[in-house]
């Protein structure tokens, strides 16, 4: 029951951040790709609730590619891209744990700098995997390097911004809401 609740929380967190990114994208051209908050939301969900929330994140990513893609994806492409987006952070968490570079599975005694490192490397790997998959399948309308550069920096800035803001302000906001007795 707790896992289901966490999955719903993760889905809502990622999907709402996708909506926020898309909303900003309608205000300023290319803004969506330059600060992609959903990447940070995904990382935060994995750090907070562990790998059990993979289905929730996966579903949110599927919804993203179904509703807000700027290319014409088929079902295989949607599932593959959502799988890449979901499993790359998990792969990175596992690699970091095996090589003793930091345990991302346990938030107790975690070094915040390790989280920054985790975000940087995951953003690079995620952009690389997604674009290698897409490069093998479709032709980009623009230069592939420009598309990949935008995706890389979008994920990097979005991830760092989201996790920084969440770590700094989440607890005070939660305390205020608690005082108002909404929770």
């Amino acid at each position, binding site marked *: 029951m707790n896992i289901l609740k966490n999955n719903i929380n993760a889905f809502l967190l990622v999907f709402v951040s996708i909506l926020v990114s898309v909303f900003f994208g309608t205000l300023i051209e290319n803004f969506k790709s330059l600060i992609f908050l959903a990447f940070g939301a995904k990382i935060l969900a994995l750090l907070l609730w562990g790998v059990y929330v993979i289905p929730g994140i996966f579903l949110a990513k599927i919804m993203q590619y179904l509703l807000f893609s700027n290319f014409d994806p088929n079902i295989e492409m949607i599932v593959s891209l959502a799988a890449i987006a979901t499993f790359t952070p998990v792969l990175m968490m596992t*690699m*970091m744990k*095996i*090589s003793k570079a930091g345990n991302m599975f346990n938030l107790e005694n975690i*070094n915040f*700098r390790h989280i920054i490192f985790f975000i940087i490397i995951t953003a690079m790997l995620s952009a*690389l995997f997604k674009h*290698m998959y897409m*490069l093998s399948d479709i032709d980009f309308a623009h230069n592939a*390097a420009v598309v990949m550069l935008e995706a890389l920096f979008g994920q990097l800035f979005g991830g760092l911004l989201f996790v920084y803001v969440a770590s700094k302000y989440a607890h005070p906001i939660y305390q205020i809401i608690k005082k108002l007795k909404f929770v």
Partner: protein
Amino acid sequence: MSKYLLASLNSFFIVFFAYFAFLSLISWQESMELVARGGLNIDIGSYLYLPLGAYAFSWVLYGKQGLPGQLLISILMSLYWELESSIFVQFALINVLGPVIAVLTFRALEVYKFKDIKSETTLGILFLCIVLALFNSLSKFFTFFLTNNHTTSAFDFLATYLPGDIIGSFVFIVFAIFVMKIFHLGNHQK
């Protein structure tokens, strides 16, 4: 002054050795008809790019003292491969500064210290090589494809550069540590 000169010379010869081994390997592959003849094609990387490991190893071993030597050999090799003027400076700098940024990222974010490379675990070195390859391949990819004078596809470029960088750097660093242990060589940086 002599400290800088010695470190630069050592760095120069370490990287030179890696290039020499790398080019010999390509010649051998050509003679055995394992790859197409015609020398190294910059559009498509090699599956065993040893020099990346040599640059990283020199940086960890000698620090900033060895940078002039690394820069010199990088420029010489760019001249040897007759790189186009639009990517000449960028490629020469990426060769030297890519490993520097990768190792500094590890140090600044307190993941690994890399003060004494002999005492690092194999998994730690493998992780360093993956990050090195990501920095090197992506920077070269952006430089190469943003100049708009490429003939190969982006997929082929990444699919050859990335595994080549990971395997090549890992092989070189593991070999170098093995040599250091055999000859009881110490770390230059204290």
